[in-house]
């Protein structure tokens, strides 16, 4: 689960890391009041930042500097409601503009290849880390935390020195360890600070330089959500396709795509393969849908409703290789859903494996227009042909 910047910053701030103050507004008037509070506190300018779960909001005009309350209100009015990559902006963050001396990159990520937590840093920040990894891989500093002992102080120092933060050693090592602590404490698979910055501020004895986390991105491990009851409240249902919300409630793994052939499959690998074969046969899959192992008939019926909720679906392809999943349960769910559905869409069903013979009998007895197929290739061909006929 991806978190908004303001949620990510709240986790980092609670861990004691130097996150500059911020406020979140849902209306221009609210943003204005927050800007006034910061400006009255002696800040020269504020930044108004769109809170969306997609990247590239800066380029899309979703991050702007405001020097007055009026300006902050105008900018907030422009950003709220803005469309960024198909997402409507519903919230903005208002935060004091920092005087940046230098920007860096720092992140804790789950390193699959090495099966370790990886602390990754770059002395040059504000860049796309993927781009840097390709163009100048040596510019990225990598330190692996021990899986049982965690990140050691010497490793944090190693990272701090590599980023040229010798003058800020105490703060830099605390941030390194803090990112790993947040990752472990919250069951995240990514805790990214980009940029981590040296900022200049006015102190009682003149300007001082210190480190600040200016932007943050956190992704949580979906498998661990159940042991963090508070995390569910950070999910943004507004940014989610209602079909995704329904799928999650039903325990289905569903992703809507642009095509017109609805797919219902058991198993993620087989579901992807079914999509690939539909495309190879000249069709376009309307979704990825894995009904999981051991799916009961009610889950199958719910899956069918989800697929049909997409008006562009012209044919449905069901591909089940029974193992844990039993063919007869799936067939019963299909027949039940067929009886309830309001829209008639050609249905191609291929069920093999556990209880496939029972499934065939159930489908046959239900009669009607269900097309059955023996092989995956045959099922794909028929679904693509049927979708084509509907289109013509």
């Amino acid at each position, binding site marked *: 689960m991806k978190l908004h910047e303001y949620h990510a910053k709240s986790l980092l701030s609670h861990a004691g890391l130097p996150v500059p103050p911020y406020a979140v507004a849902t209306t221009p008037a609210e943003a204005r009041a927050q800007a006034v509070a910061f400006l009255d506190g002696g800040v020269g300018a504020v930044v108004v930042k769109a809170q969306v779960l997609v990247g590239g909001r800066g380029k899309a005009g979703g991050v702007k500097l405001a020097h007055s309350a009026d300006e902050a209100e105008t900018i907030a009015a422009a950003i709220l409601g803005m469309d960024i990559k198909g997402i409507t902006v519903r919230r903005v963050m208002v935060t004091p503009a920092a005087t940046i001396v230098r920007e860096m990159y720092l992140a804790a990520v*789950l390193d*699959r*290849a090495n099966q370790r937590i990886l602390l990754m840093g770059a002395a040059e920040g504000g860049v796309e880390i993927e781009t840097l990894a390709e163009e100048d891989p040596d510019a990225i500093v990598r330190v692996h935390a021990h899986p*049982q002992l965690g990140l050691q102080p010497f490793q944090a120092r190693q990272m701090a020195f590599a980023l040229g933060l010798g003058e800020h050693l105490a703060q830099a090592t605390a941030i390194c360890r803090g990112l790993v602590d947040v990752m472990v404490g919250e069951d995240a698979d990514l805790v990214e600070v980009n940029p981590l910055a040296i900022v200049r501020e006015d102190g009682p004895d003149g300007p001082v330089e210190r480190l600040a986390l200016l932007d943050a991105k956190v992704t949580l491990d979906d498998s661990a959500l159940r042991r963090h009851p508070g995390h569910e409240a950070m999910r943004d249902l507004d940014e989610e396709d209602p079909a995704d919300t329904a799928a999650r409630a039903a325990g289905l*793994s569903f992703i809507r795509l642009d095509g017109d052939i609805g797919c219902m499959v058991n198993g*993620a690998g*087989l579901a992807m393969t079914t999509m690939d074969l539909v495309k190879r046969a000249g069709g376009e899959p309307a979704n990825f849908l894995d009904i999981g192992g*051991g799916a009961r008939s009610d889950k199958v019926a719910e899956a069918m409703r989800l697929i049909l909720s997409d008006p562009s679906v012209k044919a449905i392809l069901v591909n089940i*290789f029974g193992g844990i999943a039993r063919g007869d349960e799936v067939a019963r769910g299909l027949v039940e859903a067929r009886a309830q559905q309001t829209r008639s869409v050609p249905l191609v069903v291929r069920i093999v494996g556990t209880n496939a013979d029972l499934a065939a009998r159930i489908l046959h007895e239900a009669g009607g227009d269900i097309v059955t197929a023996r092989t995956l290739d045959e099922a794909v061909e028929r679904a693509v042909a049927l979708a084509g006929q509907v289109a013509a």
Partner: protein
Amino acid sequence: MSILIDRRTRLLVQGITGREGGFHAQQMLDYGTNVVAGVTPTKGGQRALGGAVPVFDTCAQAVAATGADTSVIFVPAGAAPDAILESLEAGIGTIFCITEHIPALDMLKVVAEVEARGARLVGPNCPGATTPGQAKVGIIPGSIHRPGRVGLVSRSGTLTYEVVQAMTDAGIGQSTCVGIGGDPISGSSFVDILELFRDDPETEGLVLIGEIGGSAEEEAAAWKARHLPDVPMVAFIAGRTAPPGRRMGHAGAIISGSGGTAEAKIASLEGAGIRVADSPTQIPRLLMEAGIRPG
């Protein structure tokens, strides 16, 4: 010969009295697997699978009483890391974890412990393994197999069944089929399993089933080019049409940035002399073209 499991395997089923555990333990027994014990805390002293298998409270008791050397885990995600550690402590050398949705950071610690003890873990979130005609551990349907000389390793579940069925239909038998699971942190990689196949004189050809996300397929390709340049090998990659940035069911199946795409994986595999099939049903033909005879 075979890898990981055979007719001498002495199998312990953790979670044998549960719904899934009980059902699949029976299937394993019916296939001919030597299921010697089950473990469910507080149910020690009972017998499971129609009286055929004794149940113990702890793995240590089960190992002491039955000499179990391999375990398979069907307990819920919250208890599964503990179940892996318990069988390790009892001295089990090969552990299959079928359970899905285990938090990745739990697995990080468990995998390190498995390595430190020199044991082997397959999974989690995997379908297990079958050595046709000898033993099956996990949830792969037994009926799809045929004994033979091609070793198969896969990150997927039902997709594996599809491929195995296609091979069996074409008369190409399998030495052992292993599903390593689709989680980002897991006990065995493609390379770990390929190393076992390398040392099995009766495995003459290989099939690798990968999917988008991560770099395990690329690593397998590089390993094969270096260590088994002359062994016929065919691969399939699921997710050619998957959109970037979306998690396709498996926690590990996600294209991030420019990494983990099907194109990159297919290019690495082909660069290593591995034929990549466009469809699971093409795999038998590609194997035969690479010199594998039915049987």
